[in-house]
């Protein structure tokens, strides 16, 4: 029965939830849960889709005996997924003694720099800054800004907020959380030790939170209709916005053995639970040509929970990671209780939001071949806004030239141009064996129309997509010859 009980720390208070006795679901978002609790109105709903960050909270969890602090959009976070973690909300930052408020340094900086006007986005910004404060050792100026790309403000023009962040996150001093760390680690470890896997059978919803792969595979077999999530930043939006009811959920976010990033002799193996933030660091180290995509991918709040397995399995027609995996010739490892198989990502995605995953399988890992000598990768994305905006069109290039500068191998992959991520076959065919020069790239770009007839939608008209898609090929060419013609910022 204990597998039914969710335990976590809400700030410094242990919360135990027995879903058999509650009228809310395990998949209730942390935001909605908080707003049901007296005294927790500081976390705001601005959009319920992870685009505004007004609901930002910080999750602390134990890693190697220490706490890691991650900012997360609480509107996209299922309550049951925070088992064994500390949920830190805006109410907990300041200390109140004898009716006197001692603000946390990030709060103090926001006040002093006039970082709030209407105040509605402020708790979210404060929590993003708190997250930075706790991770400040590795944070440079650009990353400071990047860490707040997931928070929208309509009043200030961000200037005072950026100044506040720079002022308080540069030289963070130990705060009350530093003092409590040992105690919190102890308490969280105890929860996990006591119960690390949840199998909640609430009256209206079954929520499975395995902590090991074999348990996960067992659940997968036992509950083949369960919606599998790994980060849930896509699934939670469906629940929030179309009120889709999810009777069975298999949440892989706690499965430790799919979180690895390993380097073998011929392959990199990335567990499906690799977060986008971890993947960003991986790309930075190994495929810098693909960084333009990761630099502007979602927001830190989303990258902290969204996973590569989750992103692949949405099989989105844009799916900003999918083109990269196409270019890298990545394969997915699909495992069931009885067997496992490797298939190329190109075959894994079978259509508009469709994959070849069987009902007894779990996407366990992504395997990326180490690049042969001479192989280069580039990617370019256009979006209405640079940050936190899904591509209107993206183009990714895999290229190998021979010593005479002729194309020996090429793949050109487009996102946002069809019902699924797709290769520009005609352009590839044309360029193979040709000299790699601007004129040939330009000729090839005219062939994009042979493979794609994009649609007009909420992001763009088809006419723009075609024009941009053609030009993106030129841009990739310019990048490949190290021409500094990209936006320099």
């Amino acid at each position: 029965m204990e597998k039914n009980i969710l335990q976590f720390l809400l700030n410094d208070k242990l919360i135990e939830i027995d879903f058999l006795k509650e009228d809310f679901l395990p998949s209730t978002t942390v935001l909605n849960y908080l707003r049901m609790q007296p005294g927790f109105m500081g976390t705001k709903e601005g959009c319920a889709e992870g685009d505004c960050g007004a609901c930002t909270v910080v999750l602390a969890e134990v890693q190697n005996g220490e706490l890691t602090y991650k900012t997360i959009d609480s509107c996209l976070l299922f309550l049951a997924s925070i088992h064994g973690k500390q949920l830190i909300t805006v109410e907990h930052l300041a200390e109140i003694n004898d009716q006197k408020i001692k603000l946390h340094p990030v709060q103090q900086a926001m006040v002093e720099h006039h970082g709030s006007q209407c105040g509605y986005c402020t708790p979210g910004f404060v929590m993003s800054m708190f997250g930075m404060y706790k991770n400040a050792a590795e944070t440079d100026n650009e990353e400071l800004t990047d860490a707040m790309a997931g928070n929208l403000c309509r009043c200030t023009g961000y200037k005072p907020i950026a100044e506040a962040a720079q002022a308080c996150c540069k030289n963070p001093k130990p705060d009350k959380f530093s003092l409590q760390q040992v105690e919190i680690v102890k308490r969280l470890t105890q929860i996990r030790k006591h119960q690390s896997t949840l199998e909640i059978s609430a009256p209206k919803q079954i929520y499975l939170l395995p902590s090991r792969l074999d348990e996960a595979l067992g659940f997968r077999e036992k509950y083949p209709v369960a919606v599998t999530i790994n980060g849930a930043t896509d699934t939670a939006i469906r629940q929030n916005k179309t009120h889709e009811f999810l009777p069975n959920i298999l949440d892989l976010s706690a499965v430790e053995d799919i979180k690895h990033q390993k380097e073998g002799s011929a392959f990199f193996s990335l567990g499906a639970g690799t977060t986008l933030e971890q993947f960003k660091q991986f790309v930075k180290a190994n495929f810098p040509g693909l960084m333009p995509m990761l630099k502007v991918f979602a927001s830190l709040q989303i990258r902290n929970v969204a996973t590569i397995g989750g992103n692949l399995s949405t099989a989105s027609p844009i799916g900003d990671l999918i083109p990269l995996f196409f270019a890298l010739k990545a394969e997915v490892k699909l495992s069931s209780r009885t067997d496992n198989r490797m298939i190329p990502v190109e075959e894994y995605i079978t259509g508009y939001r469709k994959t070849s995953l069987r009902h007894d399988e779990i996407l366990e890992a992504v395997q990326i071949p180490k690049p042969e000598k001479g192989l280069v990768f580039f990617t370019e994305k256009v979006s209405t806004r640079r940050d936190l905006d899904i591509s209107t069109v993206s183009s990714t290039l895999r290229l190998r030239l021979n010593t005479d500068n002729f194309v020996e191998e090429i793949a050109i992959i487009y996102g946002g141009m069809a019902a699924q991520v797709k290769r520009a076959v005609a352009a590839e065919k044309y360029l193979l064996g040709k000299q790699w020069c601007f004129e040939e790239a330009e000729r090839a770009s005219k062939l994009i129309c042979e493979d794609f007839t994009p649609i007009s939608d909420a992001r763009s008209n088809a006419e723009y997509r075609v024009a941009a898609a053609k030009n993106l090929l030129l841009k990739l060419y310019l990048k490949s010859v190290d021409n500094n013609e990209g936006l320099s910022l």
Partner: protein
Amino acid sequence: MNRAANNITHESAVSHVTGKAVYVADMHVGEQMLTGKVVFSPYAHARIVSVDFTEALKVNGVVDILDFNRIPGINQLNPLVHDEPCLAVDKVNCIGQAILLIAAENEHAAIEAEKKIKISYDPLEPVLTIMQARENGTALAKTRKIETGNPEEGLLKADHILEGELKIGGQEHWYLETQSALSVPGENMEMMVYASSQNPSETQHVVSEVLGLQANQVVCEVKRMGGGFGGKETQANHVAAWSALLANASGRPVKIVLFRDDDQKFTGKRHPFEASYKLGFSKEGMIVSYILDLHADAGMATDLSMAILERALFHADSSYFIPNMRVTGTMWKTNLPSNTAFRGFGGPQGMVVIEHALDRVARFLGKDAAEIRYRNFYGLNDRNITHFGQLVENNRLFRLWDELIISSEYYKRRAEIRSFNQKHSFKKRGIALTPVKFGISFTTAFLNQAGALVNIYKDGTVLVNHGGTEMGQGLHTKIKQIAALEFGLPLEKINLSPTNTSKVPNTSPTAASSGTDLNGMAVKNAIDKVKIRLDSLAKHLLTDANTASGEVVYNDGLVFLSSNPDKTITFKELVINAHLSQISLSATGFYGTPGLHYDKEKGRGNPFHYFAFGMAVSDVEVDTLTGMSKILRADILHDAGQSINEDIDLGQVAGAFIQGVGWCTTETLRYNASGQLLNHSPDTYKIPGIGDVPNDFRVELLKNAPNSQTIRQSKAVGEPPFMLAFSVWLAIKDAVSAVANHSVEPDFALPANNETVLLSIEKLRISLKV
């Protein structure tokens, strides 16, 4: 006031950062509070054939469902022009028109109920664009006109004439806090409405009308808004009326908080405009004559559209003296949600056309656009009468220019950009300087009034009530400063009450940038009244046989006579004495802006108390392969008069500028053929993020620039800096134009999103090849 004294932080800043600041969505009224949900029309234009909610009423947790038959009062949301039904009767005129109201124990029950409601429609042909409206002749009112000189003759005298058209997009407010209201029923039909409204008096009025009550039975209170920007000037009344109807019917408190997507889909926006113009000018680039015809999309109802059109007409001159001019404007009815107030209130749409046209003049003459603008600025001593006949007094354009042209390094940057563009084929940079002159006052003259109620309590503390609402702009902070200064008290002795219609009645909306101008004066008036009473007591207490009587001074919590500063009593002692002497410690205040008048028929008058000025220089880089752009540097110098709070004013300037940048660049409203807004969430509707802020962003206020006849010689600052964003829009155009080495006039529109920019560049490339 020196800077140290006046840059106090927002009075709610600590509440904001600790999550303690309360918004309507955060309010709880015990267990009995119900959730309200509105059933909106999915059709832009349709007859309602039948409505059946019998099954929905059976859903567990549903308390009541109301249709128009259950409205006890008048079925109208607009108190003046009755063209906005509170609940649709037999026809819907836009997507998002309310048809039914659901009250339920919780949101889940309300959602389940909505699924079971059956409404059948007979769809009608909708009018969805200005062009369709013009073809169908659905003008909202007759065309407005302002004319000066002889425009036709002027064109004949001009050396050159440029003709053109410009499409100007709308804009979603995207206040962080969506429309929300909580209504709590009281005894004898009374209703208390906690609203997120810029206009509590009108909210009170509309609620009393739909409920069939007297105004004295309804109270509206506004603690704060999570952003307004004009979007809560009239349209906050809608949720308030809906929640009040449900509260009235159920006898229980009812809260409605619009879901983000619903708010975006169903509430009004900045008006899209279409402009056509003819501009005649001399070979030196001096404007000789300007004829402008504006057409705007009002949406399905009147709302504030005619006042918005009027402001567009008043601002068609921007900062330029135009001897011969005619501007006409028509508002068109369409089957879209009624468009409404949004920071600038039509001013931006009026101004942007002449800024665009002058940019063309510069390109046509091969001159620097900034210099063309400079030449045409209103004069200091002559060439200073607007097209509606108002004298442009205290013109600060030249001061701003002189300072900004140097501090922004305009000429150096322009030269650098020129050489950058010569070296780069696929990225281009551009720069622009644009001015702002913005008329301050409601153009409906009587609205320029405000009230206040100041209470002093026996412990020597002060509670200030006034008619203005706090939406983040820092109004309460400035009022607090004003009260503290007038009473000579430290700030902590002053507290601001939520805006409440039972304390200060019949107030105007907090809009038109006028909040501090009007309410600050009203508060001062109230304080002056109390002080007259206190003065005579103070004189009595402080004067003895040896002292000559002098003026009573309030300073640092003390009260003394100017003739004898050594003999003091504390403010608190004075207050206690006053109470014991049966002297009232409370006073109301009032202010009405003097000297405003405007004759709509003649298009002549002095509609504005004064003008606010500003100027900006921005440069951008455009990726000519994708159309994406980035602001590299922006320099702003803005005239806020003698600022009451410099940091708050700087925050208004930077915030308005970036909001303007959003309107000018990424914020595009996309509709499908049946009138549905496609980008109805922040996933696809993109307001600026922190990464869109210029890397080098320099915002300054003009120093030593006291205003006359305003509270503490300050100037309104809410709206004017919004239009500084034209510098970004025209810098992008400059960069686009560089693709053809400024030899061809590029196609352009507002917003200059990736699509506009890239398609314009592609056209230039084709024209170069031909």
